[in-house]
């Protein structure tokens, strides 16, 4: 059996005097800490703020008769807009505009938007801008746009555009 130098009667790893002194020092420090305890506070104010996120832009689909271009069609998709607010604010959906059109299309379509949200907002097709009041938290809007014409929309690329504004209530 092999013995370490300590087990063979050599100097112990800790001096008993050092242990006593260390214990005394620790006790002193603990008692000092107890008598000098302080409370640390962190304070902050959450201001009125709003963050508007466009999760995904919408996709337009053409109706079977070719006269309605809308995100509400089977091949379309609504835009998804998340509004994170720290208090009551107002979201304004502007009237949609035809920002990009096929070169062969010279018409002036009637433009509409509609939306619904995870907080119970529900608005059917609107020809003008409108507002929704939101509370604090995240409100996710599904936002649709539609262009309607008496004539067929010719082949090409179209883009409808709308402004979504978060602002304090009046």
């Amino acid at each position, binding site marked *: 059996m092999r013995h370490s130098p300590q087990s063979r009667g050599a100097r112990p790893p800790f001096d008993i005097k050092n242990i006593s002194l260390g214990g005394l020092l620790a006790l002193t420090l603990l008692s000092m800490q107890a008598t000098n305890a302080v409370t640390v506070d962190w304070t902050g104010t959450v201001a009125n703020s709003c963050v508007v996120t466009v999760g*995904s832009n919408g996709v337009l689909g053409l109706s079977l008769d070719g006269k309605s271009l809308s995100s509400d069609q089977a091949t379309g998709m609504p835009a998804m807009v998340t509004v994170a607010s720290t208090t009551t604010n107002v979201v304004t959906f502007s009237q949609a505009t035809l920002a990009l059109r096929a070169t062969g299309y010279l018409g002036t379509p009637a433009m509409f938007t509609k939306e619904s949200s995870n907080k119970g907002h529900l608005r059917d097709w609107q020809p003008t801008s409108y507002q929704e009041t939101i509370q604090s938290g995240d409100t996710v809007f599904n936002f649709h746009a539609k262009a309607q014409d008496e004539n067929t929309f010719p082949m090409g690329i179209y883009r409808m555009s709308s*402004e979504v504004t*978060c602002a304090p209530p009046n």
Partner: protein
Amino acid sequence: MNKTKFGIKRFLFLALFAASTQIHAQGLTPLLKEGSTNSNMKIFTVAIMNPYNQRMTYEMLAIDKETNEDQTDIKFSGRKGTIPRYGQKKLRVYIPIDQKDREARICVTFPEMQGTIRPRVCGDFTVHLADR
């Protein structure tokens, strides 16, 4: 004939989908602030936020709350610029005043945004002229 119609629709769908895949976000705080001054200028500090993993280009606008007209006499310490991902930027808004009260609507927008949705966040700032 039906096949051609379907082809046109599919092309239209794909073209529109390709043109609409960017993700954008922006934030502004505070949205309401009021202050008084006995000089001819009031300075407010606002923070614009970019909570997402991409650099954001912003543009500040000052508009009339009722008419949406630009209020060009209101200046910013940085009217246009970029915010790094997950970043914030503090700006100063300089609102001149020569009447008893003035209300200004300050908005942050994305000038480069080409998607179907143009997000905008606006705050209302009111300045009162203190007795001199």
